[in-house]
């Protein structure tokens, strides 16, 4: 009894410091911190090295960037299973495009970067149109395009590596700026932008409204179909960015690259507190979710867990992390 009272007053004191801090509203953050501590212990002393941390960040930035777009889709009440295929497809076509230019041309690199983003957005638009105009359940529509994108890039490449002829291109993906790799900067930038979009723009507000209750949104003069469409385009945009970053890092694309990205992207969003039934979620949560996934992987390798059981351990840690979150909420 006394114990719990003391705890309470301590918590109250803490709450005082943080103003209106509520543990329940920071469940993801708490899960994050616990996991970070665990990883520090398991991966001691390597885990805490600056280089290791930036490695983790770079590793997760590819699916992380896509996860940010995916967060918007999920909040709007949809889902996109095609992102992995879309990334490989976009990356491959971008290198084809890049190779149209002779030599190590800077212009070619700039144009191709833009091309990747536009091309990705168009793929996303295609998904979005199937869902909104075609009125196909998002799961099925994007399951279909998942096969289509993958198949097309295999067809165009003859299932072989697509190599770039431009050595400058590699500078984008393997670049480092202020000791932080370029993909991480991009991840941060996209996260900040989409955080603002979600929380501080009309569009973001409408995405939440549509995901929460489509009918109410319609009766509130919101263009529901448009609002549902745009997140797919944004996700296509993020897939295009990832395609650019990944293909330029190795200066080549294999048509089987980026499989399973969809699961990582969705997992990041859901671990970060985005509800699969739509209507609520947070971009910063997804960032934390993505980093948590990266930490789990890193920790398992550093900790020397049996390679057969790594998958199991990974699954377990995800479940426990989410479990902790939930129990914090109550």
């Amino acid at each position: 009894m006394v114990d719990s009272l003391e705890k309470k007053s301590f918590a109250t004191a803490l709450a005082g410091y943080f103003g209106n801090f509520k543990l329940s509203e920071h469940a993801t953050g708490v899960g994050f911190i616990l996991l970070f501590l665990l990883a520090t212990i398991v991966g001691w002393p390597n885990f805490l090295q600056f280089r290791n941390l930036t490695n983790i960040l770079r590793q997760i930035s590819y699916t992380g960037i896509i996860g940010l777009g995916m967060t918007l889709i999920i909040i709007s009440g949809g889902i996109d299973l095609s992102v992995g295929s879309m990334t490989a497809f976009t990356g491959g076509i971008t290198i084809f495009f890049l190779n149209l230019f002779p030599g190590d041309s800077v212009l070619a690199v700039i144009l191709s970067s833009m091309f990747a983003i536009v091309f990705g957005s168009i793929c996303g638009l295609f998904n979005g149109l199937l869902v909104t105009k075609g009125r196909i359940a998002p799961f099925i529509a994007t399951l279909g395009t998942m096969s289509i994108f993958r198949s097309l890039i295999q067809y165009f490449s003859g299932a072989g590596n697509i190599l770039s002829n431009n050595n400058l291109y590699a500078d984008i993906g393997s670049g480092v700026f202020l000791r932080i790799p370029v993909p991480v900067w991009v991840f941060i930038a996209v996260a900040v932008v989409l955080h603002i979009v979600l929380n501080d723009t009309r569009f973001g507000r409408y995405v939440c409204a549509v995901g929460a209750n489509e009918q109410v949104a319609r009766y509130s003069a919101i263009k529901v179909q448009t609002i549902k469409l745009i997140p797919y385009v944004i996700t296509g945009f993020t897939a295009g960015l990832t395609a650019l970053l990944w293909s330029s890092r190795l200066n080549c694309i294999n048509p089987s690259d980026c499989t399973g990205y969809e699961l990582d992207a969705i997992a990041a969003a859901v671990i970060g507190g985005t509800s699969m039934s739509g209507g609520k979620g947070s971009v910063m949560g997804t960032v934390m979710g993505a980093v948590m996934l990266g930490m789990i992987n890193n920790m398992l390798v550093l900790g020397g867990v049996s390679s057969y059981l790594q998958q199991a351990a990974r699954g377990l840690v995800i479940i426990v992390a989410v479990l902790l979150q939930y129990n914090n909420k109550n």
Partner: protein
Amino acid sequence: MDIPKPPGVVPSADIILSVEGITKEFSTVRVLDSIDLAIERGEVMGLIGENGAGKSTLIKIISGIYQPTAGTIRLNGEVVRIGDYSTAKNLGISIVPQEFNLINTLTVYENIFLGNEIRLKSGLLDKGTMRKQAAAQLQELRMPVKVDRLIGDLSVAEKQMVEISKALMLHARILIMDEPTTTLTGHELETLFTLMRQLKAQGVTIIFVSHKLREVKTICDRVTVLRDGKLISVDTVDSVDEKDLARKMIGRDFTQVFPAKKYRDGTDVVLQVEHLEVRNLLHDVSFTLRRGEILGFAGLVGAGRTELFEAVMGLRHVERGSIAIEGKAVRIRHARDAVDLGLAYISEDRQGKGIVQNFDIPKNITLISLVEYVKRHLIDKQAEGKKASHYVKVFNIVAASQKMALRYFSGGNQQKVYLARWVDTDPKILVLDEPTRGIDVNAKREIYEFIHMLAAKGISCIVISSEMEEVIGLCSRVYVMKEGMVAGCLTDEHINEEEIMFHATGIKGRKAYG
């Protein structure tokens, strides 16, 4: 058994249900403050109070949906712990909740028997019997709804009847009805009251929540008043009149609901609808609306008034007909077009089409007018908050915090937030479909005054209401609809209950399409 005597209760009576010292707090906000109440077997107990007074909360505690922070519940003198709704059900308590608790994807009879299915010996569902009994029950309520229709396709009044049937099917000893009559009028109300009297005769105890004091006077034996979570009084209905009740509810004198009508004979037509057709729902509907006018739309449940204005707002596919605003023909394909033209439509279905449950007050209020709060592409949240505070004051919205999600608000307060959303669009034409559903008398008067104020500013208002007196007390002209057509238009002294009923039932006016 020795029953401790709850204060203010005749001890000799046969007490079926009593609550003692019931207190309920949500986080730190006290919503109910040691309520003591005893209800006699076979009585109809009225429960009234302003929006947010705690009526629904009290009822939810009795039916196990909420747990009290403190206090006990006694059933037949014995202390019971009602942990969830199924416990309440097993104890013979059933509830008609304030918000619809129906599954849209199931049919009428499936909903009526949900949680209470009849099964064959084999364990499979006895659909035939359930259909039959559901039909019989609806028949008893004089509600001609086919038992195989999907709930999602029903109008709110029809849903309400299904909701009542569902509660009745449990054959409970205690029937709790939280504002069952908000969507009902005329003969539906009569049949419901008849039924309640029958139940009472069978020894069923009824708790009846309503904002319509006349109904309370008509059907109840005693009436309990709550104010700010505190029990104010328990009286037999004969000992109080409507004015007393209103005074007890709001804590000060209350005289008159309807502000004086201010007739305007402006000829300036702002909205003209001609020959509107919507497949299966509307036939050749024409009407005009003048500047600054308060126009009424009356009719029986299902007359098509809701559909008419959904069509005008671009929410339904219009097959034929024209709409002109201020003399200019317009095409409205989407609700956005309508809003841009200065139209506003407050739906009767607050839950399904109105509020966003997990949004807070500011987000709900600015949902349509959001563009006004955007500065350099970003939402100015401070301005949003300020505007929300403004409306909280204007409409007297009771809430612990502006940041609380709307799902935790009392029904009436949700309605006020919803009203504020549309008012905030600064409309030229405001259509209010059952605007005072679930609103307490005091707030009702405030809303009426507000409508008058808008009209005085030159904003034209259309009031669709099933409450005859609302239309009569408020409007300068009244269209009466029947079966998707305009049966007639009443003015001046013709606006009275008799004329409206004659037109609504087809005794007078245009009878059939053709």
